[in-house]
């Protein structure tokens, strides 16, 4: 499987380690009311879709950037890859 790294081009997926659902970028506010339940959901529950899935990959044996890869879990087709730092910055605006 080749991942289209936004800076480095097509890279073998073996250079990466996999973390999981990209919703892990959205860490709950630890001081908000209901934080305990929110963290329980955040840590343990997943959408786990059969189809398009946005997920975090770490380019461990490359430039050590975190990517958000959009991939189909049924066909393994990769639809896009973005730098997680860009996704996070976009979400904050």
């Amino acid at each position, binding site marked *: 499987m080749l991942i289209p790294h936004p800076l480095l081009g097509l890279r073998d997926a073996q250079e990466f380690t*996999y973390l999981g659902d990209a919703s892990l970028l959205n860490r709950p506010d630890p001081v908000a009311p209901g934080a305990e339940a929110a963290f329980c959901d955040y840590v343990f529950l997943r*959408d786990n879709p059969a189809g398009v899935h946005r997920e975090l990959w770490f380019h461990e044996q490359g430039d050590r950037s975190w990517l958000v890869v959009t991939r189909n*879990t049924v066909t393994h087709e990769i639809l896009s890859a973005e730098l997680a730092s860009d996704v996070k910055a976009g979400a904050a605006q």
Partner: protein
Amino acid sequence: MIFSGFKVVKEALNGYKGWGPLWRNPAPKPSYDIVIIGGGGHGLATAYYLAKRYGLSNVAVLEKGWIGSGNAGRNTTIIRSNYLLPGNQPFYELSMKLWENLEQDTNFNSMVSQRGIINLIHSDGQRDAYRRRGNAMMISGAGARLLSRDELRQMVPFLNFDNARFPIKGGLMQERAGTARHDGVVWGYARGADRLGVDIIQNCEVTGFRIENGAVQGVETTRGIIGAGKVGVSVAGSSGKVMGYAGRRLPIESHALQAFVSEGLKPTIPGVITFGAGHFYVSQSDKGGLVFGGDIDGYNSYAQRGGLPVIEDVLEGGMALMPMIGRARLLRAWGGLVDMSMDGSPIIDRTDVDGLYFNGAWNYGGFKATPAAGLTFAHLLATDTPHETATAFRFDRFNRGYVLDEKGVGAQPNLH
């Protein structure tokens, strides 16, 4: 259809014309007391024990393809009860006891073969950990034996004992462990359940739930709506998809796990050998093929197939452990879908929808659990209380902080 020595002789003389199907192929009734989704080993075992032990036979098993075509037909058929944690080990030991009596119980040859499993040891720290595990196994009645390097050399002389990275220093053995014939297990339970009145409905995919006022009323399927007093979901691999129809998120990711078989060889491997450090385990089937596997591919997948990197990793592990495997030709490689849970342990529990019950999150270990998962899930469906060996397998263990993490790696499914 009944098996007997007389029948075998009669059919041999009669051109085998009298063998009929082992189970009926009924059309779905409008409703059942209990509907089980998933006609794999677990779903069929659940139906069998519901009818046999709890007297509930107005039961249907719904299967989207043909029975045993999912993980029941894609695993490496190992049975064992060599776990460490108190919440796990008594359950797997119950399963081992049921395996030992399975053929007498179902009157079907499931080819249960207790040829033993050996977990290899490469360091003093690992020996300490396995000695502790062996003690836990003995406390549960499973039995365990710590093997020295010399004993191991006599039993399995073909291993590479002097590998530079992982020299073999000994092993932990469970002599009662072994293998069973996956199809024989599925067919034995299917035939047994059918004879007790359970409807096994194949080519019937569930596409949704009927839930009213927080209580399940039935399921929507490709063969129409089927009413149900209770619904048991037993679809490991596709748990996220099916429970998604009820709007529920799970502490599970679906991953692809691959397995391999070589051409048939003369008897060469006495039991099951696991080389955890090298991501490789192997046994030999009754037909002679070496059956082996390793790690999951490591990213979410519903594809029932894996990629080349894991194939290479497993074969490298095999070559490191037993170089003679390089002379065998690889016959087939395939993949199945596993529910990888957040602590590496299963879930058998009620849900927050009345009448909806869940059995899944089996990680790598669903096949060996088949009899006990069937029995304990049937107990839960029949009595609304968890079976005494399955009290740790609740959904709320994550919120309460009572995770069952055998490896201690935390909420990272691809590391379990």
